[in-house]
């Protein structure tokens, strides 16, 4: 029996500082053992426990796409002990990964549909995984129109800047990047994410919206999508909870009869409505 508490060793290959406040970094890691790389089969929306011996573990969404071969990426905000220790790490350090854990964005359900990806600030990591996955050569045809609406408070807080610029140039994805407030060098859109969603006004016909962001953004974005005719079954989001084991035993992420770690983190709004509001 495989011990689910035992992390697989990975080496940090590259560290990218994503934002001008330096507190969000992307860690590209590669498996030390070939068999682990083969065993780690994931899909967008899933997460892993990042393990640093001596400090502990932290559940982090996988930001790379399964179509990216040979590595995994995690975009991590410096917040607690593990993420602070990770932020202080250098390239070449060996850390651990347990996973993949949790459910995935509803890829089967999204097939043949229009997909609107809405993200705010740092909460764009598994949405980035999903978008990369959908835009990948062989996968693109399985989805209809793809729209990405992504915003941050300032230009310096946008993550994956180069990738966003590349998406803006593509003609098989509509990309709308916005900031709450620009600076002297910013030539793009200004405006809150809900406002941009109102302007873009994606049709709800055969469309699923996938939304992640800070609570305030979610609160003002959902009514926009309801007004556009989106049903709660066609709006998905991903929850965060404090977790330890990551597979439904330690009880920490229990919300109603669900465990965010194994029944989530991805839920439709219809599913969330059936849960107790304790997240």
């Amino acid at each position, binding site marked *: 029996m495989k011990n689910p508490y035992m992390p697989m060793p990975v080496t940090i290959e590259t560290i990218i500082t994503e934002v001008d406040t330096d507190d969000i970094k992307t860690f590209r890691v590669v498996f030390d053992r070939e068999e682990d790389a083969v065993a780690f089969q994931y899909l967008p929306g899933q997460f892993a426990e990042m393990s640093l*011996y001596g400090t502990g573990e932290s559940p982090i969404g996988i930001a790379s796409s399964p179509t990216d071969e040979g590595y995994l990426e995690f975009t991590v905000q410096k917040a607690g002990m593990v993420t602070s220790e990770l932020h202080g790490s250098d390239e070449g350090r*060996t850390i651990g990964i347990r996973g993949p854990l949790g459910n995935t964005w509803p890829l089967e359900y999204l097939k043949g549909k229009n997909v609107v990806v809405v993200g705010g600030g740092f909460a764009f990591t598994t949405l980035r995984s999903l978008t990369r996955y959908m835009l990948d050569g062989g996968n693109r045809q399985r989805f209809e129109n793809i729209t990405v609406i992504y915003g941050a408070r300032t230009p310096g807080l946008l993550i994956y800047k180069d990738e966003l610029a590349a998406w803006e140039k593509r003609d098989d994805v509509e990309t709308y990047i916005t900031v709450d407030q620009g600076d002297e060098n910013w030539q793009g859109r200004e405006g809150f994410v809900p406002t941009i969603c109102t302007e873009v006004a994606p049709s709800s016909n055969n469309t699923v919206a996938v939304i992640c962001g800070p609570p305030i953004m979610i609160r003002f974005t959902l009514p926009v999508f309801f007004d556009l005719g989106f049903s709660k079954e066609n709006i998905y989001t991903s929850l965060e909870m*404090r977790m330890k084991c990551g*597979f439904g035993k330690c009880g*920490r992420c229990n919300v109603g009869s669900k465990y965010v770690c*194994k029944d989530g983190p991805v839920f439709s709004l219809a599913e969330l409505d059936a849960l107790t509001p304790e997240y």
Partner: protein
Amino acid sequence: MVKKIEHDRIQEIIAALMEKGILYAPVEDEEGVNFHLVDDPARVTLDFYNTVQGPKCAFFPQTEELIRYRMTHEGADAAEVEPDESPQVLFGVRPCDVRSLAIMDELFCGGGIVDPYWKNRRDNTTIIAYAFDTVDTVDFYGSFGIGAADDTGADILMVKVDGDLLLDARTEKGTALLAALDGLDEAAAEDEKRFAAAVEGAGALETRRIDTDCVARDLPGIFDSEFWQTEAAPCLNCGVCTFVCPTCHCFDITDETLFSKGRRVKTWDSCMFTDFTLHASGHNPRTKKHQRLRQRVNHKFSYYVTNCDVISCVGCGRCTRFCPVNIDIAGIVERARKRASSQQINNQ
């Protein structure tokens, strides 16, 4: 085939059991009587009503090593602490506590990823249940269909009758263990009758009972009720209810490092503590004590039923017995049921 030994000769059976592997048995400690890994037969006692803590420690120790590691310049060298597969015996468990193990199996060995530490110990443990011969007023195991001499889940059922311990196997594992134990006497026909009479007599013992019908379905309906503030008002957030509970399974995983060497451990934790759900961001979905009491009751009587089709409570009465402010989960469930039904009537 019933076997017999005088209660005064308990040390002999304990010594014989210790030969068969790891032995967990009731031992008097500073708290009262609790299950301990036995190293001295003289410390084992059967003179107790029930142990302070449930028997989960025999499968899910309060602190359990998962990994040992040594910090290096590049990271760490780590080695798995392999789940224990040694044969072990759990001796002197009350029937309601035996039932708690099957409830915990649903979580640790049920659908999805299996916890190898719990499962290996469960697979390799022989359980000697110990029938009640009296009833404490706070117990309510009868509500769950558990009898005072219930043998469900036990490999051997033991009763104490007039200074004798009578043991009868209930499974092949139990039969094999009894056959291999030196020092036990073959019971006479008279003893067989005494055993049967003791089991029947225990069957007449009645705990208080709560009505658990529809509780799982109805509890969510009063989730937002002020009922929970009222019930939780006296709670001191001490967490003793979860600590003594045989079905509470929440745990933490932490690293303990001394100089360059360390261990990753799984330790009991409690949903009654506010830090339990504290995010690194500072956000906390359950900051108030009524939210945590509500979580504990709902988890046991509603959420667990949804997921595992069984109430995660055996009515052992421990949380009530040890609560410093007399919070009684059975009373809460009874009042919650009434509140839910009156709310339904008002809504009609």
